[in-house]
């Protein structure tokens, strides 16, 4: 999770990842940021994300993202 928070802070520092659960709904993460995160997840955590995984439910919060990472790693 720490690694994920580092990635998020690097790509989009203007968000409170500890509490925010509307990262997509409120437009905090746009499509460029989403794809940058996906690229870093693959580069740093070896996770392969498919287009079908890119849905708001997976990106609306750091926790949701982390759940997706764990699911894809498993």
């Amino acid at each position: 999770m720490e690694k994920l928070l580092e990635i998020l802070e690097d790509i989009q520092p203007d968000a409170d990842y500890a509490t925010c659960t509307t990262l997509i709904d409120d437009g905090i993460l746009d499509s460029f940021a989403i794809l940058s995160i996906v690229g870093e997840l693959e580069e740093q955590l070896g996770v392969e994300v498919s287009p079908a995984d890119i849905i708001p439910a997976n990106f609306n919060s750091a926790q949701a993202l982390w759940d997706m990472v764990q699911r894809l790693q498993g």
Partner: protein
Amino acid sequence: MSFVATEFLLFVAIAAAGYYLIPKRFQWMWLLLFSYIYYSSSGIKLLFFLLFTTLTTYGAAIWIEQVNQQQSDDKKKIGKKKRNITIIGLLLNFGMLALLKYVNFGIVNINHILHTDFTFPDFLLPLGISFYTFQSMGYLLDVNWGKCKAEHNPFRFALFVSFFPQLLQGPIGRFDRLAHQLYTEHSFDWERTERALQLILWGFFKKMVLADNAGIFVDRIFGNYQTYPGLSIFAVLLYSAQLYGDFSGGMDVVMGIADLFGITMDDNFRRPYFARSITDFWHRWHITLGTWMKDYIFYPLSLSRPMNRFGKFARKRFGKNIGRTLPICIANIVVFLVVGIWHGAAWKFIVYGLYNGLIIAFSGLMAQNYRKWKQALHVNEKANSWMVFQILRTFLLVNISWFFDRANSISDAWGMMKNALTHFNPTELFAIPMGESGIGFTPVGLGIIIFASVILFIVSVLQERGICVRSAIAAKPIVIRWAVYLFLIFALPVLGQPPSATGGFIYAQF
């Protein structure tokens, strides 16, 4: 049958009345019947194209589902089979779209380059083909990716493809949000009907009073821009008003009609001229096309193997930040190239798409630098002045793109932009006749456009502040409420242009 026609309103009234009078289990069949009657009204032969997309997409989705249910441990083999079926479906349908819409454009260019004389029959473009093809292909990809299940009833699926309010100019619906609403049973709800009628009325006001009056000036100036060199700025501003009034007005009518049947469509507009960047603009303008492009082209292309390999190369070559962003920028430019081509078979639309794509790509590449510069210059991003600056900057950039969108050719667009910088003569406006009313009516016509724009601006500001104008009006005493309704009803014939003089909606051509 145009939306701006008495017979269409009668058609909708009969469809809506019957919808609530027949047994509820037949409601979706009633909608299918009226959708096909509507489509046939543009030419019975064109039904072939609608049926082609319906049947090929229906069949491909069922086939994918059957492959998915096969008992096999080889998931790669199943995945490959599903992908092949999807590709066949995509090729058949986008192939048909390309054949009807783009082959002539290709042949004209080949003839120009090779000095040949090839010809190809000039097909009549089926009504709404770009919209229903994109909607159906989105469904097929969703089934392939497991985002939704295949619809087994071909008639129900036919309704998803052909639902008549959206057939002409969208919005491009998604199966998971739209289909269940079409098939479920609906009871008559007076409050919902009243709100739907309000929306339809507001849509017609935007279309007939704002867009159609502005369109008279737009057509005249863009068609003869050298005759009116001092009006280029006015022409593009009037086109901004016309296009927004026409398309968003049309969407209000579509959504209002769908609402009459208890169906909520996806929003297609969210006050685009308040956008603070071009990216933000595309989140507010023709939203369903933007999200379609994002989900079905931008993400898959960005995550494809070649892009992945390019990303790794770019990271080594240019460092982490640029290496990470460059493949996304390229995918974004490709998407906007497709957006441009979607708008029409002409080089000016390709330039229009590339212009938007390049601005967004450049912003993406520069995002980290912008952040640093704003910090260094102590820019307060929450200040109203900064917000107004961003909105005006974006409006300017959007208006530059409208020159390419509306001018007859790229050279005309350049010519008009040059005139916009070198000539300014508002008095030329008064030499443009207001249709059959002549130039004597021109000052009144301009006054009506300004008046309608001010009303639209006030409504938009209220909506931007989170106020639901329709609810606010509905909460007022009956006298005020009906004064508003009667004003809008009488504004259409008194202030608006007659439908016979203006033709249909701009986006219905796509």
